[in-house]
């Protein structure tokens, strides 16, 4: 057989084997989820976290998966990752009591561990402004409020342009500012919940003492060291590093594997 023929056969065989392999591993999402649950119940939290992570990589954006992943990470002692995914679960399903309780528990565990190791500890336990004010309201509800009250506001203004009856003008004059206020509140809430007023996507530091460097390189000088579970805002990304700003510390480049985005990508 000529060389091209051998090459073609090799390629064909590899394609077939890859196909077979991919077929053999192409479990359905339900199967992966069930496997992850079984691993969790069996005490194999590593396998459970891996399977839940696989679902996330396959594009599953679900509050229950995020919650289970966070719980598995917490069982593994990886509280930073747990905080990241609990916050994601809350972002996907505002007001989720289980996720809120898990988040508080994870932060508390972080603090206790750090206190044992360092004598004292301080953990960022306060929720961001958006969560504090609008935590129980979904983005969709705020979006609907924005659209509806904006239409009411401009509709009232439109009416004031043409209506001549005093009583009608009086009514429109009351409706317009009230609807304007509600429109503004919903707009601010939507902006906060969507992160439009943030300097960047929120993230959580996953490793204790993760270095913040001068540049996107492992050899760059360290500026600061971030704590596990600390909140950060991603300002940019380059070469496997993300430029972040950590409140109380400053800015710096951190390796992507030491940082976890709260919101799923492209959301």
């Amino acid at each position, binding site marked *: 057989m000529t060389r091209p023929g051998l090459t073609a056969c090799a390629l064909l065989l590899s394609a077939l084997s890859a196909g077979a392999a991919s077929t053999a591993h192409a479990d359905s999402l339900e199967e992966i989820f069930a496997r992850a649950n079984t691993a969790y119940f069996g005490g194999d939290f590593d396998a459970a976290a891996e399977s839940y992570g696989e679902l996330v990589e396959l594009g599953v954006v*679900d509050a229950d998966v995020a919650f289970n992943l966070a719980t598995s990470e917490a069982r593994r002692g990886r509280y930073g990752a747990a905080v990241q995914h609990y916050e994601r679960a809350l972002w996907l399903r505002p007001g989720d009591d289980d996720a809120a309780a898990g988040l508080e528990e994870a932060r508390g565990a972080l603090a206790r561990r750090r206190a044992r190791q360092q004598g004292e500890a301080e953990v960022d336990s306060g929720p961001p402004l958006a969560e504090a004010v609008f935590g129980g309201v979904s983005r*969709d509800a705020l979006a609907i409020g924005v659209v509806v009250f904006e239409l009411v506001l401009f509709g009232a203004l439109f009416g004031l342009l043409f209506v001549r009856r005093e009583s009608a003008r009086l009514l429109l004059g009351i409706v317009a500012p009230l609807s304007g206020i509600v429109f503004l509140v919903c707009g601010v809430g939507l902006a906060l919940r969507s992160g439009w007023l943030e300097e960047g996507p929120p993230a959580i530091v996953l490793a204790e003492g993760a270095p913040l460097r001068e540049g996107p390189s492992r050899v760059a000088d360290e500026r600061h060291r971030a704590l596990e579970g600390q909140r950060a805002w991603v300002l940019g990304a380059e070469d496997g590093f993300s430029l972040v700003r950590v409140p109380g510390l400053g800015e710096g480049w951190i390796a992507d594997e030491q940082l976890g985005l709260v919101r799923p990508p492209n959301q």
Partner: protein
Amino acid sequence: MSSLPATSTTTRTGPPPEARLGERARRAARFVARLLALLLLGSLWAPEAGAQVTRATLTMRVDRTNVEVGALFRLHVEARVTGAGGNAQVRLPDLAPFELISRSESPPVQIMGLGGGVRVDTTTRYQLTMRAPRAGTFTLSPASLVAGGRTFTSEPLTIQVGGGAEPSGPASLPPGNQVDGMQFDPDGFIRTWVDQASPYVGQQVTVTVYLYSRGRLRGTPTITQEPTTEGFWVQDLLPPSRTLQDERQTVGNTTFNVYVLRRFAAFPLQPGELMIGGTALTLTQNALFQILGGGGEPELPRAGSPVRITVRPLPEEGRPPGDVHVGELSLAAELDRSQVATGDAVTLTVTATGRGAMEQVRIPPPTMDGLRVLEPEIRDSFGHPDDVVGGARVFRFLVVAERAGDYPLGPIEVPVFNATHGRYTVARAPALTLTAAGNAVDEDVGGGGGEATSANGGSRATAPSFGPIHTHSELSRSHGALVTQPWFPFAIALGPLLFLGGLLVRRARQQAEREDPSRAPKRARKLAKKHLAAARGHVDADEPREFYAAVAQALKEALEGQLGHPVGSLTHPELGATLRGRGMDEQVVGAILDELEGCDFARFSAVGVGAEEMQVCLTRARTLIESVARFVPIPEDE
């Protein structure tokens, strides 16, 4: 002297005319006397003549000639004799092909003749309740009546029996000629009606106890004896407190007020002959009824007759093992979690829904090595729509997985017998699988990178608690928030665009008015006409305050259109000065000001203003507006 020939005459001699008349009278008197004597003798013979049977009728009828096997039907025999009723004897037909369930006989009713004579009419009635045990065509022989030495017979009757037993509908009053196990009493009686004469064990039998009363009841009758239901499981179908409502029904020739005293579902618990005992009560007739001679005593005790029911056992052929539910049944089962840590508990919920004696339904706890199943918590919700007992029974089992593994639970099955079709089926809830994994749940954190636990377990006291995880998930791939939808920005822009469009329209309109000065007055006249039309409407509706407001507005619109600026903020003197300054005729100015002042005054003291006055005002306003329309104002800067 000469001689004439001789003639002869005959003369009769007798009594004189007066004497003849007297003789005739005497003859007539004698005739009348004899006649009277004969009549007197005849009246003396009357009793003897009345003692003989002059007429008799015998009727035999059934309520239906086509019946199903096992169904009940009624035979009614009535004998009416005029004469020696007391000696009449009724022979009932041969009832051999049928089973006699009950028999009742009304006492003979005698009616005495008037006018001094004695004439007796006697009516005797028999009611027989029977059942056809097998299919076929059967002939009832004629009934016979022997009275006064003569025999009277009825016509024979043919009964067609076929098919299976069908229960009679309980929804309405049974026909008047169906009387079950009772003693007919024209003043009132109790009737116990059963819709199934031969049910299966566990099949619902609806029992209704009726009270037939000649008069309206005064208050609720006192039931001194409830119907006995030994051998049945019973459920009432009527609310505990209710008002007795009556219906009218004629039984024979008597109309009664019929009340439902009791209605209940009885489920026989064993085969064989069972009895629904008779009900006894004391009823009080309506006082008015008594005044009108309705008869009867103020208080009447009444007792119903028991009804026999033949309960059939369930067929052995094809009978599944276990307790069989008679009626309808469906099962559903679910686990609150399908995966659980070993030692954790899950809830298995089994819901049984159907008809029949649902309270007798039992679901045994599933048994399996490695599972501990506790006795269930049972919740019932029963009802009886259309008098058929049914509902749902929910069993909640607590299941504890004591060992890791996969546990198939079920399928859960209950055998069911459908009495209507006479068939067995099995109600089934599909099997479920419970997966238990790992050791018993540990509160401590495990795995690498976790916190260290001290030897004395000091950290155990503060060990965090995470979980349990969620075993259900929609596994959605996208979180399509509204904000991310492509149409959202357009929805946001819609409001400002609308307002902007309104601004542009208004600007264009103003621009057009500046370019064409006649536009404003035309529009103003149009508006003024609109206000006048509204004022006319207020006249029709007799709303003087609104009327004068509309007239004033119409005048102001017209003035604004001609002057080119609003006049609403001007006082009347200022308006008058403005109009004079713009060249309006003094008379017209005065008329306009008078009208506006009149409108203002009338608006706030419009009591007693009539339609005619308003109409006159409207006419004046119209004239003024036409004057204003003809007015050409001097430009302001002049």
